[in-house]
């Protein structure tokens, strides 16, 4: 009997702890609906977007033409796309490190048995559970021009000059990134805190016995053991930063904002091309570029923070 046949027979009869055919069938039965849903909800739409990115498909025009490369080529000469790409990159480069470092710092601090720990946890987490639309509207009021906005009112009360929160593009983009960080920070604090609490205390106790200082404890015990959680946080923060939409959209609406076009990011560009100008083909091409760029960032993060199995 060949090796393959022997293996098949073992599988069938469950010899040596292997699964029987009925067990395999049961597992497939359980997993298949989930896989099918994933394919229908995730894989097929991505494929459709990819296909659409090679067409001039418009919601207003029934005729569809195949464009092998034009949509992708167009991006290089489209100042709106270039601005959006640069802004999204800035969004990721500013928001992700700040969220991870600040999240980690607060989590390490809260893990040291501070008083009112639960209160702080709640306060940090509160912005995360407030929906982005009302949050952004409140921030828009804070950033409002003149002394009608809270931020400028306070600055003026303290003797400082007013800031063009919604009229200076560089400041406006940072102001929106600030909203994004304010909103997401609580999530990372909680995730890192849970990760820290799961590190067995024996590791820290052993390090303390060896004379480790608090900083050495953090650097040589907490952070290395938290690496998988940090990787998770990094991936989530990166995906969320690339896909930022609501905060940018809300802030750039209304007659008191004069930096609408200059603070656009990739997803607001996709929205504009797809749902304002109905150029679904071009919007799909931008979506696909966004997908690829996010994928590359995440792949690099996995490569750099890969945890070798013990």
């Amino acid at each position: 009997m060949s090796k393959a046949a022997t293996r098949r027979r073992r599988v069938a009869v469950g010899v040596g702890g292997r699964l029987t055919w009925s067990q395999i069938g049961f597992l497939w039965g359980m997993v298949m609906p989930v896989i099918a849903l994933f394919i229908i909800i995730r894989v097929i739409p991505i494929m459709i977007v990819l296909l659409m990115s090679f067409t001039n498909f418009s919601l207003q025009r029934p005729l569809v033409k195949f464009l092998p490369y034009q949509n992708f080529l167009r991006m290089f000469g489209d100042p709106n796309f270039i601005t959006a790409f640069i802004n999204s990159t800035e969004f990721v480069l500013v928001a992700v490190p700040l969220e991870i470092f600040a999240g980690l710092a607060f989590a390490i601090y809260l893990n040291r048995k501070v008083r009112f720990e639960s209160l702080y946890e709640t306060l940090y987490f509160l912005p995360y559970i407030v929906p982005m639309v009302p949050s952004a509207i409140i921030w828009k009021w804070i950033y409002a021009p003149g002394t009608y906005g809270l931020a400028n009112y306070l600055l003026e009360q303290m003797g400082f000059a007013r800031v063009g929160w919604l009229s200076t593009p560089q400041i406006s983009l940072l102001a929106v990134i600030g909203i994004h960080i304010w909103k997401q920070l609580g999530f990372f604090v909680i995730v890192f805190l849970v990760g820290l609490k799961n590190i067995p205390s024996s590791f820290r106790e052993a390090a303390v016995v060896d004379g480790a200082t608090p900083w050495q404890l953090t650097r040589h015990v907490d952070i290395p053991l938290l690496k998988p959680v940090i990787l998770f946080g990094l991936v989530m923060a990166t995906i969320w930063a690339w896909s930022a939409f609501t905060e940018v959209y809300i802030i750039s609406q209304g007659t008191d904002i004069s930096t609408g076009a200059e603070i656009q990011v990739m997803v607001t560009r996709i929205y504009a091309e797809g749902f304002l100008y109905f150029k679904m083909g071009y919007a799909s091409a931008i979506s696909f570029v966004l997908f690829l760029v996010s994928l590359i960032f995440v792949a690099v993060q996995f490569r750099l923070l890969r945890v070798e199995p013990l």
Partner: protein
Amino acid sequence: MRRIIVGIASFVLAMGLLLSTATPAASVELSVWTAFPELHEQVKSIGDQYTKKYPNIKIKATLFPQRALEEKVAVALPAGQAADLIELDKMGLYPYYVAGYLAPLPKNVVAWVKKSFPDYSVASVTSDKGEIFTFPWLNSLKVMFYNEDHFKEAGITKTPETVDEMLEMGKKLTKRDAKGNLTQVGLDLRLSGGGFGTSQKYWTQAMIPYGAKVLEKVGNKWRAAYNNEAGHKALQFYIDCVHKYKVDSLDVKSDAEAFGLGLTSMFQREAWVVGYMEKNAPNINYGVFLMPKGPGGWGTVGNTMALSVSKACKHKKEAFDFAMFMMNDEMSRATFADSGWQPFRKGVDYSQLYKKRPQLKTFIDAAETKGHAVLDYENIAPIFEIHSRMADRLMAAFKRADLVDNQAGIAEVIKDMAAETNSILDEYDLLAK
């Protein structure tokens, strides 16, 4: 016995026939999508009155924020799932007519529209094929609003007639604090907000008086018509107002809210502001005047808020009838009074309304003032995109103080903007070479 059975059967049959003729006709429900809360309420109110008149027809009005409505129409109309009647700006609806998703007005309705609406409004909703593709329901006509108390305080006794006069008055009306921050905006130009609203106000405020057009038709195609001296002067006017004479700023509140707060002396808007002021700023004394003349022309933009019947509508006859009911004399008066939106209808007596809100008369008279042009968007598919992308570039240009007395810089901004307009036209095979 047989006779009795036949008699009973005949009686039952007769009663059945009698009952079936007495039952009201099958109920019809017409759905209407609108984008503005005050119009939504108006449609509901008119719908109730229509149902009283025709009990078998129910009107179901649904309100969406404007952008959401545009998205919903984009997805639902091609799929035949949109409402029976859709309210949107004419330029938003035109591409759907071209693609065959809207029902053009039937002959009897066309006759009524031609008789009851001003010629220019009929022309603006007439396609190249000669079909009227939508009802020119409301006129989004722009005039200038001014704060009477600010004028009195500055010793100004009349409203400006020319753009130069308006700028001079704007300078007198502008106030600053010790740090140089504007505390009273002499002339609010709508420098912000984005989208086609910003370019629309720029078109009205600067392009028309300096004689610049956004597009010009050459044969049956189009091209950008502002890459010229008139176009340069229009942008120069805005740059001077903001950076040279500083009668407006990017760092102040703007639009109707600022006017209602008494922060703005003059600004440009539509009739709905009259209702807004009544509700939100009843203590502000204000008046309105027609857009001032310029060296290149005199006029305003009166874009059409249209009402269309979907091609997939199953009760087109009823839908067209309801649309006509919405625009009859009585309903037009009610719409103007209750929603603040200006109906396009002509020959409607608003005298009672003028007694309460005298400002509204200027809006109605604007269309009939000799020499005062009322312009609307061209009927071409990418018109929304052209104006929206123009707005993006304009907003970036308005921030540039380096464009003061910089003809080369202004020419470059206009050249790039016109090139983009032409490339959009080219994409739709509409560019006149």
